[in-house]
């Protein structure tokens, strides 16, 4: 049995989903689920040891014959797409309901189907032209999903920024694929490692896919798009579409030759994204914007893995590159799972309280125990703590970096700081999520909305439980997933297949890690049960936390998101450039005083905006040439003709 019938079912389901998406919600959900399960099964079959699936047809699309291919790398990302796509569809069924959003619920289903199918097409096609078509379709459908709630002006602004940034990436992709087609003589894609003249094209791919993946400093579109999209869409954007950027980088760095310095650049950008992503996250007061910056951080971690794999490939295919890439790829899955879980939980908070501002929340764990505990699970995973999946992939990357250090040579000098900064990133992420959990779920409610929060419905909870379970599965039994990851890595660089001497060592090490994780989880469970029983027995009394001796403490006297993180954000003030608005108490009996602070989008506001303003000024100046006076238009013509004549007469036209 091959993957073909399953993929046919998946594709058929998607087409049916697009057709009926506007009308019948339940049937649409069922069809979508069948479709993603079939897609998942097809991907799992290839990853589980099945043959690659390849299909060439004489059928022409845009003048090019259709050529589909499902190898281990495609399958690796397809599996993630199907999991998040299915979970998001279920979650969206409860979250973006007809009652709450009568205007957009139908188009939401339609564009969800279009997005899933175009992403699937991006993963499967093996022709540059078709890749471009699928990519554009995916960009546009994601735009419509981001702007589902387009009555709000900030949503429209975020959507516009997303669309603009995506099309910069698209432009680079156009250049990339057409140059590739010109140099190879065909739009067909495939392995062409031996043609070293194609190497410089990698930089175009890096800009295009890096922009889409949200790599620093090309991440400018990401925070606002992720924060303003509906939460199931944010999960999809963060969990899957960013990874499609990574897919592009992995795919084309595997198929095409890369310049020798590519690995260093990617690793450097990865480290930068990781550290600055988490620094910016710490400065945020908006729950979803904070999660969006953590996507930048995690993309950075993935890029560190990919970058060191590229470095290793340039240095006689050293075995540690394989580990680094395996860690990076596994982190693709892991980040997809726990970031979607976190966005789902954040959406659940937003759904029940109506605000993303952390300063309006607080004390939600009593009202929303499911959401709070699942968010906590996701927070542990994203902070890279054992026993969950985030630790597994980061551990693999660390091992790769340590091996690179032991191997000596120039790579060691990059690997040591990278490992240190990766550790620092994880520590900062932990601090950041301590802040989020503390401010949002603990303490006392800071607003009426937070005080009257309620747990979300079964569809939303079910989707979150599924993702939480997946995070635990990878954390507790990592060895099960090792073979899938290795298969994708070996497709990326076939030289590594079987060459690494440690082929048998890693599964053993991973199963030991799994055992350790299980033991840790059991211990944690035992401790939790013991604590819970003590609470139940009531052998202690409840009281306020120490309130500094205030006579009448109010919920406003709690740590805010800004004050909790202020020590760390001070360290990064050189890039965060936090803006403070102070109104100090002045007289003996001050009437009013206030203090607010916020972190701007530094790159967007201090780099991109000034540049675009210059462009706009030049364009406006050019527009005054167009004044509507026919006489002057004719004069332009004459001047142009005269200039051409001069060029020709001077012999420049030859």
């Amino acid at each position: 049995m091959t993957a073909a019938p399953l993929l046919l079912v998946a594709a058929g389901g998607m087409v049916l989903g697009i057709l009926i998406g506007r009308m019948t919600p339940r049937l649409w959900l069922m069809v979508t689920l069948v479709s993603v399960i079939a897609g998942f099964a097809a991907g799992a079959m290839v990853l589980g040891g099945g043959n690659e699936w390849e299909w060439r047809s004489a059928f022409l699309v845009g003048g090019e014959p259709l050529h589909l291919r499902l190898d281990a790398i495609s399958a690796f990302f397809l599996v993630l797409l199907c999991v998040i796509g299915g979970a998001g569809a279920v979650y969206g069924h409860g979250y973006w309901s007809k009652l709450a959003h009568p205007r957009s619920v139908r188009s939401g289903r339609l564009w969800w189907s279009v997005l899933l199918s175009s992403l699937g097409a991006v993963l499967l096609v093996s022709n540059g032209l078709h890749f471009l078509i699928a990519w554009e379709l995916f960009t546009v459908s994601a735009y419509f999903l981001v702007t589902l709630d387009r009555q709000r002006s900030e949503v429209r602004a975020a959507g516009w920024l997303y669309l603009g940034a995506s099309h910069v990436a698209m432009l680079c992709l156009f250049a990339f694929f057409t140059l590739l087609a010109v140099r190879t003589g065909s739009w067909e894609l495939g392995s062409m490692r031996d043609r070293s003249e194609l190497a410089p094209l990698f930089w175009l791919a890096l800009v295009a896919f890096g922009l889409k993946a949200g790599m620093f400093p090309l991440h400018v579109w990401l925070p606002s798009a992720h924060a303003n999209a509906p939460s199931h869409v944010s999960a999809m954007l963060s969990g899957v579409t960013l990874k499609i950027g990574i897919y592009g980088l992995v795919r084309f760095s595997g198929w095409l030759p890369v310049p020798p310095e590519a690995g260093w650049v990617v690793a450097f950008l990865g480290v930068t994204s990781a550290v600055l992503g988490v620094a910016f996250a710490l400065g945020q007061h908006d729950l979803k914007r904070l999660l969006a910056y953590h996507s930048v951080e995690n993309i950075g971690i993935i890029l560190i893995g990919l970058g060191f794999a590229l470095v290793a490939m340039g240095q006689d295919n050293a075995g540690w590159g394989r580990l680094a890439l395996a860690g990076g790829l596994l982190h693709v899955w892991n980040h997809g799972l726990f970031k979607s879980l976190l966005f789902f939980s954040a959406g659940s908070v937003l759904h029940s309280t109506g605000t993303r501002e952390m300063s309006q929340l607080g004390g939600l764990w009593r009202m929303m125990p499911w959401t709070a505990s699942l968010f906590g699970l996701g927070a542990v995973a994203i902070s890279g703590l054992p026993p969950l999946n985030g630790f597994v992939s980061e551990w693999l990357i660390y091992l790769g970096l340590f091996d690179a250090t032991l191997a000596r040579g120039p790579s060691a000098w990059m690997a040591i700081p990278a490992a240190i900064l990766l550790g620092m990133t994880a520590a900062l992420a932990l601090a950041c999520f301590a802040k989020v959990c503390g401010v949002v779920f603990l303490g006392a409610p800071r607003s009426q909305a937070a005080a009257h929060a309620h747990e979300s419905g079964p569809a939303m909870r079910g989707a979150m439980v599924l993702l939480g379970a997946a995070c635990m599965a990878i954390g507790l039994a990592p060895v099960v997933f090792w073979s899938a990851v290795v298969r994708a890595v070996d497709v990326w660089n076939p030289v590594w297949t079987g060459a690494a001497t440690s082929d048998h060592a890693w599964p053993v090490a991973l199963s030991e890690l799994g055992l350790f994780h299980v033991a840790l989880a059991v211990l944690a469970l035992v401790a939790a049960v013991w604590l819970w029983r003590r609470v139940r027995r009531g052998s202690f009394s409840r009281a306020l936390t120490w309130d500094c001796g205030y006579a009448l403490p109010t919920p406003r006297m709690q740590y805010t998101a800004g004050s909790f993180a202020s020590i760390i954000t001070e360290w990064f003030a050189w890039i965060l450039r936090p803006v403070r608005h102070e109104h100090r108490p002045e007289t003996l009996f001050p009437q009013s005083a206030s203090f607010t602070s916020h972190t701007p989008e530094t790159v967007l506001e201090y780099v991109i905006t000034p540049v675009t303003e210059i462009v706009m000024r030049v364009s406006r100046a050019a527009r005054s040439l167009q004044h509507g006076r026919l006489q002057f238009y004719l004069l332009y013509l004459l001047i142009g003709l005269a200039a051409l004549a001069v060029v020709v007469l001077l012999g420049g036209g030859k």
Partner: protein
Amino acid sequence: MSGGVWMIGHPLLNLLIGLAMGLNLLALGSSRLPSIIRAMSVQGMLLGLMPLLLESANLDWRIILVVLATIVGKGLVIPGLLRRAMRAANIEREIQPFLGYVPSLLLGAGGTIAAVALARALPLMPEHAGSLLVPGAIASVLTGFILMIGRVRAISQVCGYLILENGIYLFGLLLIHSTPLLVESGILLDVTVGVFIIGLIVDRIQRAFDSLDTRKLNTLRE
């Protein structure tokens, strides 16, 4: 530059072209619309005669047909249409041109001299080297441009366009052996219909806005 060089081959042809270049200057220097139109129509008739001279060895009925059509079209029909439009709009004179008459005359004269000088620098075929065809064509195109750029009345601009077209026609005569006559007659028909429509539009604009100043017609620039 000795005048004798240009008389080799087609003395009569060069004479006609010289006259046409003079008419260019007349059109540039005059402020009254009727005299511009007259200059243009005489120039059209002169040009219409040229195929007769060029093909005097092997005349056939098609060439005679083209000659007649050009003379009637450029010499009578188009000027007639323009005069009608002029009467309908009730204007006789150009007012306040962008470019004064003396400067445009100087520019035109300079352009004509430059065209003659320039033509020697162009890589022409040997049989065309002695004729004034190319300089005449360039000078007419330049004159047309100067009229269109310098004048504000729509009708003077149309005249400018027609003189420019005459220049292109002169260029076309270089290719008279290879251009099918059908193309020539097609161009002529296009120009006639174009002028016909412009005549109607001028009438409408005059009635709607009470002015034919093209400087005021710039609202639709986007």
